[in-house]
């Protein structure tokens, strides 16, 4: 009975306040879309980092079938060449700069490739043979990349030595800056949303002061009196958060999935499904923001 009563109160409150409720929905929608955009950029950065990025700095790619580099004149890398390279890596001259290194076979490379490009059509046209095997080196000091590069580039069986970080770091810093901008805009919008929710709840409490006055007098508990107002704000904010989640999904599906991934087939993009992990966070964020701001407002404007 009490639940039915509270629900009825929420319904009448939302109906009475339609224009304010719509504005709360829109403001939370926009602000949480920005929050979500920042989250999506971070997801995208993680996606592009792939398997090795956080573990190693330098990759020594070995010759494979189609290699055209000078060191690959003799064809694909032979087991002896590979052993020689490993010995060289373990020799004191090189080992002093190296924390750790791992060998990635063609099969491993294929596995990691499949993971990273799972959302991209390119994954179907690649076979393990096309991917080079490699040594992945974790440097004691990433700045000493040049030493490794000079030592190994000319070795037989080495196609190329790449400092992966240098390739990606510029892009990542741009993306980080973008997500910072998104977060700041989101911050301002969230302040807007909080103030708007507070105003809405205040109006709502004012327009129903007769009812709440009577409820107080006949001894309704604080929860029964306040809950309809709080839930009113929370429901509006959660609708806004749901719209924001939907928008993020649409961006991932239509913009990243249908458009960008065709423009840049060699880049790993996040899938629309991945953006859905942001949805619960947005819903909780929206709901709790609304809940807290309505609660604080009621404490001032609705005597219980």
């Amino acid at each position, binding site marked *: 009975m009490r639940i039915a009563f509270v629900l009825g109160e929420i319904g009448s409150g939302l109906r009475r306040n339609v224009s304010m409720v719509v504005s709360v929905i829109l403001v939370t929608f926009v602000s949480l879309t920005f929050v979500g955009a920042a989250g999506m950029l971070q997801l995208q950065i993680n996606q592009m980092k792939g398997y090795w990025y956080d573990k190693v700095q330098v990759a020594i790619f070995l010759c494979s079938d189609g290699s055209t580099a000078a060191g690959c004149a003799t064809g694909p890398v032979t087991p002896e060449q590979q052993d020689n390279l490993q010995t060289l890596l373990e020799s004191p001259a090189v080992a002093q700069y190296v924390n750790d290194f791992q060998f990635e076979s063609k099969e491993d490379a294929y596995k990691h490739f499949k993971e990273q490009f799972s959302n991209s059509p390119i994954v179907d046209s690649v076979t393990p043979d096309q991917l080079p095997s490699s040594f992945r080196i974790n440097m004691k000091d990433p700045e000493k990349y040049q030493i490794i590069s000079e030592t190994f580039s000319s070795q037989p069986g080495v196609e190329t030595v790449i400092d992966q970080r240098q390739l990606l770091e510029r892009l990542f810093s741009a993306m980080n800056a973008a997500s910072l901008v998104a977060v700041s805009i989101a911050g301002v919008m969230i302040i807007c949303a909080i103030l708007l929710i507070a105003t809405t709840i205040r109006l709502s409490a004012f327009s129903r002061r007769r009812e709440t006055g009577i409820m107080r*007098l006949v001894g309704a508990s604080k929860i029964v009196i306040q809950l309809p107002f709080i839930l009113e704000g929370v429901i509006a904010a959660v609708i806004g958060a749901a719209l924001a989640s939907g928008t993020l999904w649409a961006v991932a599906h239509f913009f990243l999935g249908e458009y960008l991934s065709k423009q840049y087939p060699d880049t790993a993009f996040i899938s629309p499904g991945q953006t859905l992990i942001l949805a619960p966070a947005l819903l909780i964020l929206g709901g709790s923001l609304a809940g807290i701001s309505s609660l604080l407002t009621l404490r001032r404007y609705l005597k219980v």
Partner: protein
Amino acid sequence: MPVRRLQIWAVSALPCRVIRAMIRFENVTKVYDQTARPALDDVSLEIDRGEFAFLVGASGSGKSTFLRLVLKEDRASSGAVYVAGQNVAKISSWRVPRLRRGIGVVFQDFRLLPQKSVFANVAFAMQVIGKSRSVIRDTVPEVLKTVGLEGKENRLPHELSGGEQQRVAIARAVVNRPGILLADEPTGNLDPTTSMGIMGVLDKINQNGTTVVMATHDDDIVNEMRKRVVELRNGIVIRDEAKALYTSMIPVVGQSRRLRDASGRDESQPPASGERNPGVGEEQR
């Protein structure tokens, strides 16, 4: 039988040890503004269970403050207020609703919800404290019968006369069977005949065992009822008499007016509206 049930409730809802005083003020002072005189000044007073007491006095004499303190709408500046044996200052804020469930309140301006029917207005008081639909369906018609509103369940407040609206308000105040009924100028907006009808309802409720405290300016009613009268002036109790009249100072005025109204032939002037209305704004919360 609503009468029987009301009595049973009034007894069973109280703590085991018998408390005679339903409302007790011990040296209560209430100061709203440090620079002004207190609204209540060292008031000590007891109102017993089942008693009917009038609280009279000019506007600003402290009647409404008295009622607010009983409801714990305000906190006494000093002294202690006991309601049903409980010191209200010691009731934690989340238990205040429970205190208020034991107290019904009626106002001069009725305070009905305009968009709800008579039944829904009374049922509202039960809904918000979580009474089940079936209990509400059984109880509300009974209470409406007690206040004399049978057959008007589906009317809206604006379709009722002032007296009927006040009856709805009384029904709402007593539907949860409180031990105390506080009435703040309940007849302030009503003509003398209608007022007497309302007094009949309050008297009936009082006879069912509910303690009734009524703040009023209506001398005719006080004189007619011959109940206990507590007179306040500037926050001080200046008179506390059983079976008293509105004023013991100039009995002639009260008497003559009473006779006039009782004869029902006084058409020359509206009853004391000139006196009452200036106080209305101040008394309302």
